[in-house]
């Protein structure tokens, strides 16, 4: 066990390069799936190890559920017992569980409320709301996923651009992008080092829908214009992050990507490019993370098994 139990807590750092490079160099669909999978595995391993560290850390607290044989010096020597780290793991694990539960609950609540707001309307896939605030989004779940769009947004788009908007939102529903977004959100709460992956996936999911819309409409420029116009007409909305200072926000990057050529679908990039190196780095990090947490869990099981008088 030893140091292995702490590895999965910091191994998410190996995914930072690919989170940064994937959006430019991989097809958005590949990038979304890859980053979500990496984030999911790493978050699970990190939480398992946090749990193991906590079990070890509580050994000396009165009233802990561990068997008496646990306090045997030989057993102690076999586990990385550190009083401070062990005790710190207790609030950390609680924080992870509470934050994840809150995120899940919130996700469900917004979806339920939004569906309830649409209850009086006929059950068509697209719900057009008369509102002077321009917005559009895909609302998953309920009896069927729905596309919600306001008249203010539709009024500023040409017919072809409206088709692009609807294709984009339908792509979100059809590919179930909300599951990817929820997965990376939970992962980011499980381990803060996974936050760059959440940002990256929320961008690549939009790009994925943009590419499907571009295929459906048959013109990349129409989709780019629809996004641009929609963003300019709704620019009153405050920016949620400070990313704008460092680099262009997601909207100009999406438009620029659509004005360029369609991304190539590659199965797996070569090791000898920067993106290949980053992808392999993240894959190796994920594998090591999985092995370390499995190793630690098995070790812990055997120690507990040996220490329990049966």
């Amino acid at each position, binding site marked *: 066990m030893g140091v292995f139990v702490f590895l999965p807590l910091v191994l998410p750092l190996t995914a930072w390069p690919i989170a940064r490079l994937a959006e430019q160099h991989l097809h958005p669909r590949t990038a979304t799936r890859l980053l979500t999978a990496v984030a999911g595995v790493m978050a699970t391993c990190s939480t398992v190890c946090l749990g193991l560290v906590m079990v070890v850390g509580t050994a000396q607290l009165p009233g802990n559920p561990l068997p008496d044989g646990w306090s045997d010096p030989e057993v102690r020597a076999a586990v990385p017992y550190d009083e401070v780290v062990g005790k710190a793991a207790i609030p950390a694990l609680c924080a992870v569980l509470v934050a994840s539960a809150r995120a899940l609950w919130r996700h469900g609540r917004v979806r339920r409320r939004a569906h309830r707001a649409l209850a009086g309307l006929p059950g068509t896939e697209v719900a057009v709301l008369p509102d002077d605030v321009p917005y559009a989004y895909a609302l998953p779940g309920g009896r069927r996923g729905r596309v919600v769009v306001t008249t203010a947004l539709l009024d500023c788009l040409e017919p072809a651009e409206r088709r692009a908007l609807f294709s984009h939102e339908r792509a979100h529903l059809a590919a179930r992008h909300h599951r990817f977004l929820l997965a990376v959100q939970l992962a980011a709460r499980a381990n803060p080092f996974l936050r760059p992956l959440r940002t990256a996936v929320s961008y690549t999911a939009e790009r994925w829908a943009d590419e499907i819309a571009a295929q459906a409409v048959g013109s990349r420029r129409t989709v780019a214009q629809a996004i641009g116009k929609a963003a300019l007409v709704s620019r009153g909305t405050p920016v949620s992050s400070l990313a704008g200072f460092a680099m262009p926000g997601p909207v*100009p990057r999406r438009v620029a990507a659509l*004005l360029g050529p369609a991304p190539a679908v590659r199965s797996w990039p070569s090791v000898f490019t920067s993106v290949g190196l980053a992808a392999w780095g993240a894959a190796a990090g994920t594998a090591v993370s999985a092995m370390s947490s499995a190793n630690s869990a098995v070790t812990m099981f055997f120690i507990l098994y040996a220490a329990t008088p049966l």
Partner: protein
Amino acid sequence: MTEHRQRSRRGQGELEALVLSALREAEGPATAGWVQERLGGDLAYTTVITILTRLLAKGAVTRERVGRSFVWTPASDQAGLAAHKMRKVLDGESDREAVLASFVTGLGPDDERLLRGLLGHSRGQGED
């Protein structure tokens, strides 16, 4: 327990839609009693009043005092009511981007200039 509460809340939304559509069938302002009759008398008079008051708060109906009671006039249709409710859902959620994948997100300080540049450039290319 929660499921029961959910169902009754959804029921409220449906009742609001029902009352609003009944009111929209009236020629001119109608009283709560008229609405109750129109709905077949399934709802108690006080329930109808409660729902009308809730619709008033949402701006979906207006009312006027005539004699000792109120007459009610629809101010919006079902879509308008849905729009109002949706705005409330969205405004109440500070981090709604986390749940709903919006078509566009907000623009940063330099993004607007950048975006206009990109679109202007592409239009020029498209006309060639």
